[in-house]
């Protein structure tokens, strides 16, 4: 079940009022929301409900041992067991066939493949589970009650594709009933409506009409079309993924819960470091806190810092998918981050000017930094999108190709790409002002305007159904 469908609308229209009706009776609300979340998950494939339940039980058991035993040996063993189990499940479902196929291909072997379908959301709930047991071990999070942890692990708005919510952010919200008189509905509606437009109007259109043809048959397109497809994919993946997490955050708000933000206008970033503070923020901080810092972070000198950055980004790339294209994507970001960090000292050692002459206005320097950052990110996206490494290089090669185009770059496409990028430059308070204006409307006007928006989105998307969210594969 995915958000922008009639099935989900029916599901949520039933769950929302029941959730608020049961909210004062927490003994009923807890099993209800857990059952609703498991139903939501089972709608994708009921077999993997057992994996989710097993992961929940195992991690809660480990957390219980960690919290209640004082012997460091026992606590550490429980932590290692939980992480091994979590990563083991991820490894079997996500990576085993990739490595088997790679070995078969390079050594001519015939290792059998499992062909297990990747359980929806496994990467997300596994990361949440690891953060929970690690935080309990570090003493940053208290042991949750089993039912509370089960709700946290399976809460349907974030279950499938994030944001990656920490136990310390969510479980305290389960301490008592949520306040039915303080629903930030205007923000929730804004996030959901904006998500629908981003996904069904922008992402799906650019993906179908521009990105798929170019990445499918790069040799058929000239440089202009290829460049527009590269820019188009940057817009498509942002609109696709941020749409999902915006809708997740909005749905949670309607149910009375708050999730952390996941995107903050990423294409306005001035550096790759800045980009990672704005893109998939909940993954970035997860990688920072549970991978980069435990590896040593920037504490062991320059070389170790670069090594840790590379390892973090390469593993972050591999998290997205079992393919060399994702490894290269992570590698580009890792190298870019290391270069950014190294540049001042390298420039100093080589007697390069570390800053551009003062006579160049700061606005020009900032604009140049943003343009360079955006294009490095776009370069990495080519590998992220391409089905294989050779296609990625074929796409890059076609950037310099001449000849006639196929007519896929239409004024509408250009306008949509430009508008989607331009929206990121709106002043920060624009959304809040729109929300305030919205709540001044009478209730009927609010409802009818949202209903009309749904109609327009359905019409623009053409009734061809919703393309799967890109991050569902991860």
């Amino acid at each position, binding site marked *: 079940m995915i958000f922008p*469908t009639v099935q989900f609308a*029916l599901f949520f229209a039933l769950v929302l009022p029941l959730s608020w009706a049961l909210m004062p009776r927490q003994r009923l609300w807890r099993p209800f929301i857990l059952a609703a979340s498991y139903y939501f998950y089972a709608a994708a494939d009921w077999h993997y409900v057992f994996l989710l339940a097993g992961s929940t039980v195992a991690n809660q058991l480990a957390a219980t041992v960690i919290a209640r035993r004082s012997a460091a040996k026992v606590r550490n063993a429980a932590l290692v067991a939980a992480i091994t189990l979590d990563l083991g499940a991820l490894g079997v479902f996500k990576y085993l066939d990739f490595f088997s196929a790679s070995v078969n291909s390079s050594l001519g072997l015939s290792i059998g493949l499992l*062909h297990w379908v990747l359980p929806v959301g496994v990467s997300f709930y596994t990361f949440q589970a690891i953060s929970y047991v690690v935080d309990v071990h570090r003493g940053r999070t208290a042991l949750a009650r089993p039912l509370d942890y089960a709700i946290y692990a399976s809460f349907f708005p974030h279950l499938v594709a994030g944001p990656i919510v920490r136990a310390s952010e969510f479980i305290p919200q389960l301490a008592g009933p949520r306040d039915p008189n303080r629903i930030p509905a205007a923000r929730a509606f804004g996030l959901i409506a904006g998500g629908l437009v981003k996904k069904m109007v922008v992402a799906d259109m650019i993906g179908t009409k521009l990105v798929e043809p170019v990445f499918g048959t790069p040799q058929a397109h000239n440089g202009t079309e290829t460049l527009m497809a590269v820019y188009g994919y940057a817009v498509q993946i942002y609109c696709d993924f941020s749409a999902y997490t915006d809708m997740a955050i909005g749905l949670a708000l*309607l149910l009375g819960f708050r999730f952390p933000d996941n995107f903050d206008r990423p294409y306005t970033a001035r550096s790759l470091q800045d980009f990672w503070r704005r893109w998939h923020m909940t993954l970035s901080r997860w990688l920072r806190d549970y991978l980069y810092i435990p590896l040593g972070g920037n504490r062991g000198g320059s070389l170790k810092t670069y090594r840790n950055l590379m390892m973090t980004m390469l593993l972050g790339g591999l998290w997205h998918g079992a393919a060399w294209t994702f490894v290269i994507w992570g590698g580009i970001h890792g190298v870019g981050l290391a270069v950014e960090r190294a540049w001042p000292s390298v420039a100093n050692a080589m007697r390069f000017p570390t800053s551009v002459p003062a006579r160049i206005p700061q606005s020009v320097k900032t604009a140049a930094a943003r343009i360079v950052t955006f294009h490095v990110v776009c370069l990495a996206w080519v590998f992220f999108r391409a089905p294989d490494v050779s296609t990625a290089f074929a796409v890059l090669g076609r950037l310099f190709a001449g000849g006639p185009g196929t007519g896929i770059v239409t004024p509408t496409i250009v306008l949509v790409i430009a508008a989607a990028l331009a929206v990121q430059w709106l002043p920060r308070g624009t959304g809040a002002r729109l929300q305030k204006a919205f709540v001044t409307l009478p209730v009927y006007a*609010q409802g009818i305007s949202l209903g*009309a928006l749904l109609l327009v989105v359905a019409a623009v998307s053409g009734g061809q159904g919703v393309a799967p969210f890109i991050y569902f594969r991860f």
Partner: protein
Amino acid sequence: MSEENGPEPVTTARQTGRVIRIALVTALLLNTAGVVRAGLGMPSGPTRDLLLGFARPLDSFAGLLDLNRPRSSLDAMLGHPDSATGDDRQTHLEQDADRLQPPAQAPPPAPDGAPGSPAAADPQPRLAPVGAEVRHATAADPLRILVTGDSLSDFDGQQLSRVVAAEHLPAKVRVQARNGTGLTQPSVFDWSDEAAQDAADFDPDVVIMVLGANDGWPLEGHDVGSNAWNQEYARRVEAVSRDFIAGDPQRRVYWAGPPVPRSAPWIHIFARINDAVRAAVPNVPGLRYVDVAGPTSDHGSYTDYLTDPAGHRILARQHDGIHFSFAGSVFPARIILTALQGEYSLG
């Protein structure tokens, strides 16, 4: 949320519920045909039955009051006039049944359900006489090839395009995959309409149709894979092919059946689909059958790996056991190209 614009506006759960109800009712009343269409696209089950049981009478009611007008006006403005068509009107594919000849005799059931196995396959189906000779393609005036169909057609088309480009063949390939579509639910997606539209839009010399992955549904009340189902499926193949060919007797339709799938229920269904396409060929001048299943199987059985002419083993299938992988799609693409070269001079 940023606090720089003052405190976040909040409201009550009760009022929020009212806004949502009004929004959903508004969207539903103005888009009943779209909801029926969405329901028809859902897998069989109580949710689908419930939705259709509710939406169909509502669609009739909305039709009486002309409430679908905003949606149809928007569709007309946006250039997809039929996108919200519900199931209350007869689709073109269904209308074709009235004007077409009686359905061709379907072949007997596949003895072992394995498409491409010697028992199931008739590798040389009798060809109908064609209306006109095919035109000669040159580098200056290349053969226009449209690869279309369901999701199976996507990678096949992309790889065909690559092969054509790599070998500098006088052909131009356009890929137009319509994911999630088939012949068994024309009220969800009417391939007859689509064929007529594609023929008008692209004017292809050749249409490569790759279809069948979504056709595990009953037809006209006949169980999947029964003889009556097969006859109706063959009739629909004929109807769609005629719609592609209409107006250009030189145009050809190469219909590639689905490959041998991994899991049991689909093995039989895909075998029957291949049978039905074969059965349709003699009745439509210009329709050709391309057997992808046989050459990409292991003596009629499913296989993950295929060996290319250079001797490299390629992981040719995706996890689902139905689709080809991107790399593996070069095999059906080559099979299709070989079939084309049997009729067209492509250098």
